[in-house]
């Protein structure tokens, strides 16, 4: 082989020669997501790993991720062959094992449990209802997605969503990233990339999407309500809470066990006070490591052929609908409480019923303070907020057990 041939062969094998247009679009899109993460600070902790995974998986010839190992629509009931993946898979395939097997999302929940104080929820258990009301978005979108008919526009055809797809899309309305990823890998793994991007984008956009809905549904008088200070919660209550919730919820919906169980274990580690070392690891090192692997792995599934489809656009729109309905029902639930308690509950805390901890609570605080500068709703809103985490994990368990 002479020198010219060698150069020619290298060039022919390089990414520049083998790149396809869809890959180029995906690379541009991942750079856009990186921009949103770095400059606009949209959920950077997750968006940056996701966008970078997306970038790596779409660069041609890297062999880092093999979509054909994970799904094959030609074969009914296709199951990934883990031996083959371990032997021939790239590094992103290996990261993705943790998502596909459902290890990473519960580990993230372990961290979420360890980082959150359930005290406000224990002090005011009524707010559990607001966490439930905000889950309406999930089920509305579940129906809505199935009602979209198959269509063909400009030669692009859309085959409609199955019930499984619809369940995975609806869960975006829970505004909970790990839950959405967990549910999507169980019900519709081929949509994972789009669902994860939609879920995390909307979580980042909570301060933009929620306030108009909250203001539209409430009057200024309602927004000005100052709530009574929460009662102090004893240590004993805080310790018994995670144990009791685990037993009750898992007995009722066993499919919710991985998420709820880990969430509560994390919280018990925090509140028990005797395993500080574990609690610190869960809150810091463990959740950080898992976040990196989860983000890159999720990004890897967004290959051009998977992501550049009409379904992605529809999923992103449906996600917004799910999220808006969830917020609206949360606020309506809050209004109901306002009336029932004769004005003791500020309806704004209802919007925090979508999980997105703690952004949604901060939004309630901010909108409340706009109406009444001396009002502090933050801790009151943390109640529905953490109830929303439990609520969306329960909803995910239900969808998995009904559909899966």
């Amino acid at each position, binding site marked *: 082989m002479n020198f010219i041939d060698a150069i020619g062969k290298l060039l022919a094998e390089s990414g520049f020669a083998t790149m396809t247009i869809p890959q180029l679009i995906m690379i541009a899109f991942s750079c856009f997501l990186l921009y949103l993460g770095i400059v606009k600070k949209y959920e950077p902790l997750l968006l940056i790993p996701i966008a970078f995974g997306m970038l790596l998986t779409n660069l041609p010839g890297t062999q880092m991720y093999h979509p054909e190992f994970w799904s094959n629509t030609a074969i009914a009931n296709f199951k990934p062959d883990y031996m083959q993946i371990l032997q021939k898979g790239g590094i992103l395939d290996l990261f993705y094992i943790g998502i596909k097997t459902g290890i990473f999302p519960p580990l993230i929940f372990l961290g979420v449990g360890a980082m959150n104080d359930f005290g406000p929820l224990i002090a005011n*258990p009524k707010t559990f209802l607001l966490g439930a009301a905000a889950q309406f978005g999930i089920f509305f979108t579940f129906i809505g997605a199935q009602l979209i008919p198959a269509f063909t526009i400009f030669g692009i055809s859309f085959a409609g969503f199955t019930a499984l797809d619809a369940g995975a899309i609806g869960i975006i309305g829970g505004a909970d990233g790990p839950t959405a990823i967990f549910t999507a890998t169980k019900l519709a793994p081929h949509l994972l990339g789009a669902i994860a991007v939609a879920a995390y984008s909307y979580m980042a956009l909570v301060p933009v999407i929620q306030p108009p809905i909250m203001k539209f549904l409430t009057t200024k008088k309602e927004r000005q309500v100052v709530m009574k200070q929460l009662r102090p919660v004893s240590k004993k209550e805080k310790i018994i809470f995670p144990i009791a919730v685990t037993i*009750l919820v898992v007995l009722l919906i066993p499919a919710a066990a991985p998420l709820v169980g880990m969430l509560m274990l994390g919280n018990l580690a925090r509140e028990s006070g005797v395993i500080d070392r574990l609690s610190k690891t869960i809150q810091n090192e463990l959740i950080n490591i898992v976040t990196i692997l989860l983000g890159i792995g999720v990004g890897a599934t967004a290959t051009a052929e998977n992501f550049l489809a009409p379904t992605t656009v529809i999923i992103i729109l449906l996600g917004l609908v799910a999220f808006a309905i969830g917020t609206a029902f949360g606020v309506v639930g809050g209004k109901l409480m306002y009336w029932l308690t004769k004005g003791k509950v500020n309806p704004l805390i209802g919007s925090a019923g979508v999980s997105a901890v703690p952004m949604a609570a901060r939004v309630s605080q901010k909108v409340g303070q706009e109406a009444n500068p001396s009002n502090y709703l933050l801790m009151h809103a943390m109640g529905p907020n953490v109830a929303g985490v439990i609520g969306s994990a329960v909803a995910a368990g239900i969808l998995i057990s009904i559909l899966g």
Partner: protein
Amino acid sequence: MWLQSIVGISVVFFALIALSVFIYLFGKVMADDREKKKVKPEIIRASDVKSIEMDADIENDGELIAVITAAIQASLVKAGISPECKIVVKSFKRIGNDTPVWNTTGREELLN
């Protein structure tokens, strides 16, 4: 599909209501426990203290101006800036608060 959704949302509500009732009852039991153990200390709650009416004409409130003037004077004297400074507060207005809300809440909780 409709049925699945109705069943789904009902179970979500059922689960969370069940939890809510449990936590409520548990809180009651714990509260009884606490009351039995301790002699009730006299608690002055923030809600018992009459809150200051925030009327629109707050900027012309002579009493408030006097209080603010005195506070500034006292702090200037204390800081040793000027032992006999003479200041007049002509007007004041609320400025935006840029302390992170978590800090403010933490402070509130310590104060109450």
